[in-house]
């Protein structure tokens, strides 16, 4: 019962982090509004959202898959989880100390939204934040399954990675998309400067928090 509860909580965390990324203008929804206004076509809004989603999804997958491969070493699972948690905490602390925005992001042409979205997610450690949550989910499922064969375990973990990345990206795209559509049709671009908050510190702290929580729940 406890495993089911924590699994539910972890899946909600995947969705919540998606919404968190989605509504943050820094992850790109204003670019979708801009695309539609530039082209004078509503379709361009959805096309831009799609490009942003693809970039984000690939960034999630690029981080989660190596960890799912690592889980093949089933007896090292605890160590992997500790390592991942420490990595996330370290990134959080790094972002707290280094508050500069990565300049290379500004070099990406506005036409390459998917690439920009991928790099923005990578640079901010959006994928890394999901790793402790993902590892937690894998663990709850293994507890249920007992000692499954190594190969089916690995396939299962990869499958979970896909679902985690998809669920997160879907939540991000839907939430960001809703804001973009709202701004395009009703709210107007004034909403952009009114609603944008500097979440740099909150973001860095949430990375640390996710890492610390996953260390605490390891016992």
């Amino acid at each position, binding site marked *: 019962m406890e495993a089911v509860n924590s699994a539910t909580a972890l899946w909600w965390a995947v969705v919540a982090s998606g919404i968190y990324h989605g509504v943050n*203008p*820094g*992850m*790109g929804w*204003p*670019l979708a*509004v*801009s695309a539609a*206004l*530039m082209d*004078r076509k509503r379709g361009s809004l959805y096309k831009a959202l799609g490009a942003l989603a693809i970039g984000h999804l690939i960034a999630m997958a690029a981080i989660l898959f190596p960890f799912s491969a690592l889980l093949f070493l089933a007896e090292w699972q605890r160590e992997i989880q500790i390592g991942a948690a420490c990595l996330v905490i370290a990134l959080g602390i790094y972002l707290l100390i280094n*508050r*500069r*925005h*990565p*300049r290379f*992001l*500004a*070099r*990406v*042409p*506005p*036409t390459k939204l998917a690439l*920009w979205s991928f790099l*923005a997610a990578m640079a901010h450690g959006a994928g890394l934040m999901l790793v402790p949550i993902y590892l937690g989910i894998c663990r709850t499922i293994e507890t249920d399954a007992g000692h499954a064969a190594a190969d089916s375990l690995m396939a299962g973990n990869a499958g979970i990675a896909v679902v985690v990345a998809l669920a997160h990206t879907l939540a991000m795209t839907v939430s960001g998309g809703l804001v973009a559509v709202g701004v395009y049709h009703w709210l107007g*671009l*004034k909403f*952009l*400067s009114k609603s*944008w*908050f*500097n979440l*740099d510190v909150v973001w860095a702290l949430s990375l640390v928090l996710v890492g610390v929580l996953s260390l605490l729940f390891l016992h």
Partner: protein
Amino acid sequence: MNLRPDPTFHATPKLAMEAPAENLAFTLMLSPDGSQPDGLAIVDVDPNSETYSQIVHQVIMPNTGDEFHHFGWNACSSALSPLTGHAFLERRYLIIPGIRSSRIYVIDVKEPLKAKIHKIIEPEEVFSKTGYSRPHTIHCGPEGIYVSTLGGGGEDGTDGPPGIFIMDCETFEILGRYEMDRGEQTKHYDFWWNLPRDYMVSSEWGLPPQFENGIVPEDLLSNKYGHKIHFWNLRERKNVQTIDLGANHQMALEIRPAHDPSKDYGFCGVVVDTTNLQGAIFTWWQKDDGTFEAKKTITIDPVPADADDLPELLKGFGACPPLVTDIDLSLDDKYLYVACWGLGEMHQYDVSDPMNPVLAGKVEIGGIVKKTPHPNGKTFGYGPQMVEISRDGKRVYWTNSLYSTWDDQFYPGERGAAMVMANVGENGGLTLDENFWVDFPDGYRSHQIRLEGGDCSTDSFCYPSV
């Protein structure tokens, strides 16, 4: 860093027009002979204030011989694009380059009446980090602050071509040259861009030996000043196309793209056509295939004059050239203001149809021959020069100096600094405001104006108005 975007950042030009009007202006003061240090004057432009049209604070620099010319903000509305990643910068610092000394001052104007020097970048640092000299135009771009220069390396600035360098928008450290492939660009003056469409346009004045000690008549008559505009792939840092406006179109200066980024055109002012002394405006535009084209859409004729009324330089021509030295476009992209520094006229063109501008208003003040006084009776020395438009498009401010050594050739003798303002009529038209007249300290001339919260030649917008 702010917790919210700076309230003076606006997503669209339309939102910027609706924002509260400016209460202060920042005007550069230069000492033409370098006998005094240059300065920044903070001018009260709030009509309800007791100190209206007076200088309420001055920041005087610690060096002499800088020659202030153009300047700009550390951050503008371009910060609202997520692509740049700088949404929480403050519009707080004015970056003021000295075009004679190559020194750059960063002035903190967070409290305008206590504005102070924040940082000084010495010329040696500019030379060693960029190989360029004589910094000029400032714009806030994708990777930081872009600074155009008029000179290359070496004592006289002719060792290599001039170009653009980038400064960090938080630390103001010089990061290095912008260009990866400059193509046939060998001279420089102004530049601006369309950020979502990812292109930049740059223009040409001349090399330092052609302007520092005054205009070189032989160079002008043999069409050796700049006459090309260059189009760049902004983020690839590549010159993708150069348009030669024709060698007779000498000195292609200000570049004014439409503020609304969904529009794909802009303007460029040409000082003088050497075949007929006309001043000209070219409209340039991007075609569907991504390439550019330019066409002359405004010409301003010279006015015949007695040799006795003309300075040495112009006596042989028997006419006063308009000398189009500055242009500025209102935020709604409707009116283009054209300073005719030689004639002593400020023109207002309705450019709703950018290919067919229509003269909508005109003010006469100063001028080589006409010397029209201000409606308040005071003498306006030189002619209308650096022009700046309020965000709402209702007020147009201008000063009167072009460049120390050139002032002396076209307008011999000291004629005094001036800054005036004209009101724009409901349906166009331009009238000088009798009550607005700024008195400057003795020995100074006035140059570019910046308005509190941004104006019509600083902010780059990332979203269309619609």
